């Protein structure tokens, strides 16, 4: 494309009906303790 450069291949839509296993880390446990960004968590699967 000439006007647009797409930088990622996201999977958000595909996780609507799968996921939810709950094995991932609690976000506030990771580093911050005062804010709970969830976008920077990783999936354990």
């Amino acid at each position, binding site marked *: 494309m000439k006007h647009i450069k797409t930088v990622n291949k996201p999977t958000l839509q595909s996780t*609507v009906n799968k996921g939810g296993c709950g094995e991932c880390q609690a976000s506030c446990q990771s580093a911050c303790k*005062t804010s709970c960004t969830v976008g920077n968590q*990783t999936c354990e699967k």
Partner: protein
Amino acid sequence: MREAIHKFEQGGRYILLDVNSGSVHFLDRMAYDMMDVFDGTNDEETVRALAGKYPETELREALSELHELMDAKQLFAPDISVPPTFAAEGVVKSMCLMVAHDCNLRCEYCFGGTGEYGGTRELMSREVGEAAVEYIIEHSKGRKHCEIDFFGGEPLVNLPVVKHVTEYVRRREKETGKIFKLTLTTNGLLLDESVREWLNENHVSLVLSLDGRREVHDRVRPDAGGNGTYDRVLKNFRAMVDSRDGKDYYLRGTYTKYNLDFTEDVLAMADAGFDVLSVEPVVAKDAPYAIEEADMPRVCAEYDRLTEAYLERRREGKGFFFFHFNMDLSGGPCVAKRLSGCGAGHEYYAVAANGDLYPCHQFVGREGYRLGSVFEGVTNKELPRYFRESHVLNKPKCKDCWARFFCSGGCHANADLFHGDIREPYEVGCAIQKKRLECAIRVQAELALQQAEG
């Protein structure tokens, strides 16, 4: 109206985030302007609106590219509702153990009232610690991965109980098949050689508190006698991190109104030889160090500076990991996780020194938020349900916001502090979070492109 896209300029890039797919696109200036008008259905209106500024052939070319993205579900992707994978009830798998409502520092901004949490100085007993472990084992149900964070106050002032609980956890892991990740958050004052060795032998991850530059740290983190602590804790942190080959730690700082030039603090931490960093804003009300609405232009400009400094250091081969710039644009958590957020009150509880359960460490001692105790279980059945349902799609100010699938709706404790309602987000926190997300998206997009282009 629910925001389906978010466009922003960051570091000279014109960036478009498609909220419901998570797609990130770099646009040229013309396509960026087109997105003020284009809604996926109005090609002619878009051309008319911009025909005076750009050649029509170019506009139509860009429109065809935009439609291509829509066909690939990377632009105006379908709205996301609460998925069936988001169970009605949470499974408690993480706990913050307040092993010491006591501290050997007197940090000016401490939300725990320098360790007391509005009560008296108190240490957790072995019995409470063991009961907390049993509570997680029972209530984490089929979940294999569980977490315990030793917190305070300063957890190392109650080291015997930290050791006892750790040994207990390791024994129960073998008996139950659970895997516990243990973390300890410390100010570093008591981190001597024997503690170091024990932490390493027992695979305890660490959050080490340091506020950047010496003068910044010493101003807000004095010891009980009012003396600066920077030199002492830095020496201990250095030895600690070296002793575990730089693994399993975060060096974490807080910035306040006193150091809105916090890029200098992040770089000071990196220059001191640490490369896994997190620095974030103090949350306070009516205090001289509190960050207020009026500080936001300065705070945003500083995140711009930090972003450029972060990328510059990487280019120089001196890169570091910064917690809030870390984001997996292609993978990342599932929708259910994005709704669960931090899990406070439904997947994650804090245990006060006396065994009382609270939604998280920040709620400890707050009236009306006691859930029960590790001995009697949760007696307030309504609260966990209310926390579980207080996700971004149920909060009036969050459900339409572009950041809804990244921020998890902000911190409940902060919302309660400012508005007395966990569903009413703390505005300054939201503004900072959004700015940080824009910076993170820019950083990760830049790195992804660099990788793709070799």
